[in-house]
């Protein structure tokens, strides 16, 4: 077993010295993958659901419930303004994903995304679906995210500019900061359950009542009703949810545990969708984008292709 793989199974207590942990070296390709993933996700989320945002303009002013910076407005913006923001957001996010003028495109996409989703959350309820995506994207704004896997890098190479290093401290901190944001998002969510409800959140029939209510709002949901009708099953899911959420920061200091936490929260969101029809695909995708080691996958894929390429002439000779 190599030195690196042994470390993968060990506790990495370096996070207790944040200054060193955050600002250690990282891969330009991993940072680029996070840029591509988050920006493409934003472009898809906004571009594929235009009516969700454009319909906001039809809201009566008396029903407007602004939150945070949206309190600067008296009512929802007009359809024209929303449409302009939507077009800007999709184009800028697509450019940032491709790494074309990425340092300019990414902040523009982020501002337009916050503008659109800020009004979506001004209907009386805080909408969390895209918040984690936007919070992780914000970290990338001052980062050098387009030094690899980008049109900008390709153009720079064509101009004869020296290639940036694959590993540098410039590339490590944005991904690690995003990892911390994701980990503590789930941890805080779990801790609020304990703060407001205590262990009763899992040990009482709380989840059963949630599932019955959600089922009624969908005119009956067989899976949700099955779990709610079996108290032991609903307790099991409730305890699992509490455990995964509250202990997610362990994924920061114990790398191998990511194989549990990432599928764990993706499974949790899939379960919420199946039983309650609440779509948290943006949160689940953000966790995958931020926590997967894309540079390692790219290297493994390149090695496999190389091995196959070497093997092919040998097969042809035999």
């Amino acid at each position, binding site marked *: 077993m190599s030195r690196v793989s042994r470390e993968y199974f060990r506790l990495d207590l370096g996070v207790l010295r944040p200054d060193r942990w955050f600002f250690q070296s990282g891969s330009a390709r991993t940072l680029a993958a996070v840029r591509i993933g988050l920006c493409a996700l934003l472009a898809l989320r906004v571009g594929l659901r235009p009516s969700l945002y454009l319909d906001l303009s039809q809201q009566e002013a008396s029903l407007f419930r602004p939150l945070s910076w949206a309190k600067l407005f008296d009512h929802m913006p007009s359809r024209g303004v929303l449409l302009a923001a939507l077009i800007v957001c999709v184009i800028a996010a697509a450019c940032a994903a491709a790494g074309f003028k990425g340092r300019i495109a990414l902040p523009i996409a982020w501002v337009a995304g916050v503008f659109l989703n800020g009004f979506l959350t001004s209907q009386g309820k805080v909408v969390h679906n895209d918040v984690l995506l936007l919070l992780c994207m914000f970290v990338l704004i001052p980062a050098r995210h387009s030094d690899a896997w980008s049109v900008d890098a390709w153009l720079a190479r064509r101009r004869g500019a020296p290639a940036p290093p694959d590993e540098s401290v*410039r590339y490590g901190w944005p991904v690690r*900061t995003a990892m911390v944001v994701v980990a503590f998002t789930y941890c805080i969510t779990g801790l*609020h359950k304990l703060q407001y409800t205590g262990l009763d959140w899992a040990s009482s029939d709380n989840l059963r009542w949630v599932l019955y209510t959600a089922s009624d709002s969908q005119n*009956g949901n067989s899976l949700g009703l099955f779990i709610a009708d079996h108290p032991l099953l609903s307790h099991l899911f409730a305890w699992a949810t509490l455990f995964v959420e509250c202990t997610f920061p362990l994924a920061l200091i114990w790398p191998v545990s990511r194989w549990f936490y990432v599928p764990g929260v993706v499974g949790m969101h899939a379960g919420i969708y199946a039983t309650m029809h609440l779509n948290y695909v943006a949160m689940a995708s953000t966790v995958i984008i931020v926590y997967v080691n894309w540079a390692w996958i790219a290297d493994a894929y390149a090695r496999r292709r190389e091995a196959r390429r070497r093997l092919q002439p040998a097969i042809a000779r035999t």
Partner: protein
Amino acid sequence: MPDAQSTSRLEAPAQRDQPPQEPPPGPPSPRDRVPAWTRGFVALYLIAFLICGVFAIEAWPLTGWRLFSHPRRANLYGWRAYTFDPRGHETKIDFARFPRADRHLPLIMQTYARLSPARKDAVCRAWANRVRGFGLQVAGVKIYRAHVNLRLHRYHRHAAPARLTLFYVCADGKGARRV
């Protein structure tokens, strides 16, 4: 194995059969140092994120992350809204037919009691106007508190009928009245 020309400072020919050594310890080059403002940015951002999260402050997109955190009870209380015509005949408001942004009755009712009388009336008028758009006669809006006992739900696809208690009446032009 690398040829002689590719041999780097860290990989002398004598060491070719040994694993490459770590770079000698020392301060990173200025090009590889993270600027102070970057450290400040990360620190400030994470502090703001954690403060909003831990203290449940809604400074959106920084948020309090209260997702299903409040306990649910078997006695579920909700809201139902009905329009009534001049003869008093009531029709349940079908919010699913409204534009998406106007469908959220429970969300509006969370803060309804705290609204000014004029604002309460404006909410009712907005719903009444939407229903008139469907061709119905509307003289006003009645808002009921609905109580459902979820214990009766077990092994039943639908909940038991809700018990309704009249809470507000908004007759057009006369404002909202708490019953």
